């Protein structure tokens, strides 16, 4: 069934009784060409692009809970291509282009809103670092504008330009950055993959990976054994546990990142704004809630919840930067499990097991990567060669020191995040 | 020869009195970090006793004797206050002058615990923090050493450079507590 305004009108007149399920609920088959472990955004997108770009449809996506139940459904919905280092630069550029055609490709409105992102800076040194990044973005073919204080004032009149603790010098403006409706991305990919023949199997937990002679043969699941010629691991915070089933230790630590939303408000913040002197980023959802977040709680956690000190710190940053938000009320807080890599950049690579592929290490930036990750991972799985936009996301870069992508410069070791 | 005028960290910022609580800065006095060498804790304690009549304090404790005091201030560390350390101590401990590194703010009054509860994440109730306690913790976002000699008196040591912030924040809490009491 194709979605459109006419369809909404026609169904409305007919009492909305004609809508069909967005996806099937199939039982797992005995064997597939490809099994994708993980029905989050990245796994669903991988399945979609395998079908769409490579004509491979004998695929199962195995999800231990419900589709889109992980980080795709609990992030702060920011979409951007404003990275400065080779590797990330071309990858996120590629991903943003896919975002820009996503609704048409999926026939699903993910409400991708290119409202613009402004990264504020608060010193000459920060300005120069952002300028370096902005120039790299333009060299990559993306967009960036360096705003001075007055430029910021025009776009963001509600910031505190007088009293705030760390004065606002300006901002790096990325007009094509923005937000999207996170759940809709998962649902859109799920529906489009399902329509192309992919089996989306919920409540199916993988309990083992079958390997013979260094070659992957299939997986064991809570719903029985499934044979597969290729197996792809895309399980974010649970990467270490699933990879351990294949005898691997990963350069990953799972951490909690909190996010927050306020009660609904009439429009007051029209962009995505990030603070340069303490992690704080905010945008307003179309429904009216201010969606915001900050830094990791810093302790490893699988609990998908955090504690008050970081929550308070995040709100405090908001209060010094844009004191108007003191009048809003925090409605809900939650946490996601972040698969933190040592240098803060992801891994899309083959493994030492033939036919076993790994996609992880998205840290706290996986949402915007969903289409790019799915697209390039599908390419790797289908062709056994890395896509050029993700060729630097190698698993061995930590051992060799080649091509480390430590965007924040805090160090490429776990304890320095 | 010119003489260098000394200025205390909170010079000109105190005293402040609001609603029965006063905030003042203690007069400057010698403060020395005393950090025992490996395995020299007991010997240091004896030497301290001999030289200054004060042993090395247990974690979380402060020992006073007249105008002298020694307060536990961290792992293997105490602040000897009110006297320059006897040279003999150097055999047992590293010594570092901290006399100018801290502002020593004194809070006194019945509501002093309510004021500190606005900023300090440790329990300062009489049961949890009896007289003679020394606590390393935070005052807001500032690292602090909080001493409780007894009664309704607390001494808050924060870094000299933050004296202005400390006075501002404690004063704000004093005002809020007083306004609540009037409610």
């Amino acid at each position, binding site marked *: 069934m194709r979605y459109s305004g006419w369809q909404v009108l026609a169904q409305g007149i007919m009492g909305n009784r004609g809508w069909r399920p967005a996806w099937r609920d199939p039982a797992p088959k005995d064997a597939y060409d490809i099994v994708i472990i993980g029905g989050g955004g990245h796994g669903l997108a991988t399945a979609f692009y395998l079908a769409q770009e490579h004509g491979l449809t004998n695929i199962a996506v195995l999800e231990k809970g419900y589709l889109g139940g992980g980080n795709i459904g609990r992030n702060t919905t920011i979409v951007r291509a404003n990275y400065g280092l080779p590797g990330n630069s071309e990858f996120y550029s590629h991903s943003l282009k896919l975002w820009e055609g996503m609704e048409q490709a999926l026939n699903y409105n993910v409400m991708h809103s290119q409202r613009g992102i402004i990264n504020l800076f608060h010193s000459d040194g920060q300005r120069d670092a952002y300028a370096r990044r902005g120039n790299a973005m333009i060299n990559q073919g993306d967009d960036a504008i360096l705003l001075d204080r007055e430029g910021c004032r025009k776009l963001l009149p509600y910031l505190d330009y007088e009293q705030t603790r760390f004065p606002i010098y300006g901002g790096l403006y990325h007009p094509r950055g923005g937000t999207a409706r996170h759940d809709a991305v998962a649902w859109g990919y799920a529906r489009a993959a399902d329509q192309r023949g992919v089996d989306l199997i919920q409540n199916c937990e993988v309990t083992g990976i079958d390997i013979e002679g260094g070659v992957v043969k299939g997986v064991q699941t809570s719903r029985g054994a499934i044979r597969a010629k290729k197996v792809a691991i895309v399980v974010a915070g649970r990467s270490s546990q699933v990879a351990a089933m294949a005898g691997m230790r*990963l350069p990953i*630590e799972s951490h909690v990142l909190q996010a927050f939303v306020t009660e609904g408000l009439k429009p007051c913040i029209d962009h995505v704004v990030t603070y340069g002197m303490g992690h704080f980023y905010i945008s307003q959802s179309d429904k009216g809630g201010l969606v915001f977040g900050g830094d990791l709680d810093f*302790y*490893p*956690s*699988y609990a998908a919840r955090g504690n008050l000190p970081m929550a308070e710190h995040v709100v405090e940053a908001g209060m010094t930067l844009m004191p108007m938000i003191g009048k809003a009320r925090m409605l809900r807080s939650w946490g996601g499990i972040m698969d933190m890599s040592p240098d803060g950049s992801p891994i899309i690579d083959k493994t030492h097991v033939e036919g076993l592929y790994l996609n992880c290490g998205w840290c706290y930036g996986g949402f915007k990567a969903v289409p790019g990750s799915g697209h390039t991972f599908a390419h790797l799985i289908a062709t056994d060669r890395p896509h050029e936009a993700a060729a630097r996301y190698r698993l061995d870069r930590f051992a060799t020191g080649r091509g480390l992508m430590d965007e924040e410069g805090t160090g490429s070791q776990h*304890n320095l995040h | 020869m010119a003489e260098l005028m000394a200025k205390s960290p909170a010079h000109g910022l105190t005293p402040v009195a609001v609603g029965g609580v006063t905030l003042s800065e203690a007069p400057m006095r010698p403060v020395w970090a005393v950090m025992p060498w490996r395995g020299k804790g007991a010997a240091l304690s004896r030497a301290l006793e001999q030289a200054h009549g004060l042993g090395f304090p247990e974690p979380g404790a402060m020992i006073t004797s007249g105008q002298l005091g020694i307060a536990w201030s961290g*792992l293997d560390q105490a602040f000897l206050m009110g006297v320059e350390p006897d040279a003999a101590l150097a055999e047992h401990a590293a010594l570092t002058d901290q006399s100018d590194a801290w502002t020593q703010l004194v809070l006194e009054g019945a509501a002093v615990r309510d004021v500190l509860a606005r900023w300090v994440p440790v329990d300062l109730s009489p049961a949890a923090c009896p007289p003679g306690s020394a*606590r390393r913790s935070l005052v807001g976002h500032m*690292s602090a050493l909080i001493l409780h000699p007894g009664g309704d008196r607390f001494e808050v040591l924060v870094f000299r450079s933050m004296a202005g912030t400390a006075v501002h924040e404690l004063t704000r809490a004093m005002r809020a507590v007083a306004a609540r009491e009037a409610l």
Partner: protein
Amino acid sequence: MLIPCPLCGARDSREFTPKGHASYLDRPAEDAPPQAWNDYLHLRENPAGDTRELWFHGAGCGAWLVVERNTVSHAVTGARLAREVRDAG
């Protein structure tokens, strides 16, 4: 979350900075093979369950601690001075 500092008692986690898995104490010898250094710096068990990790009591007594904690329940079951953990081998 409370961290039971052996010196200060149970304290609010806001006084501390978590600093990764306690295996970071087990620094390889200078001449250890590159794989040992890669293991040490990058590869992690990353357990969903009990773990041992480093916490720095920076806004407290300044001690580095080895904290035993569960990454699923967040339950903290113990803390020792990192120095003593090292001394105990």
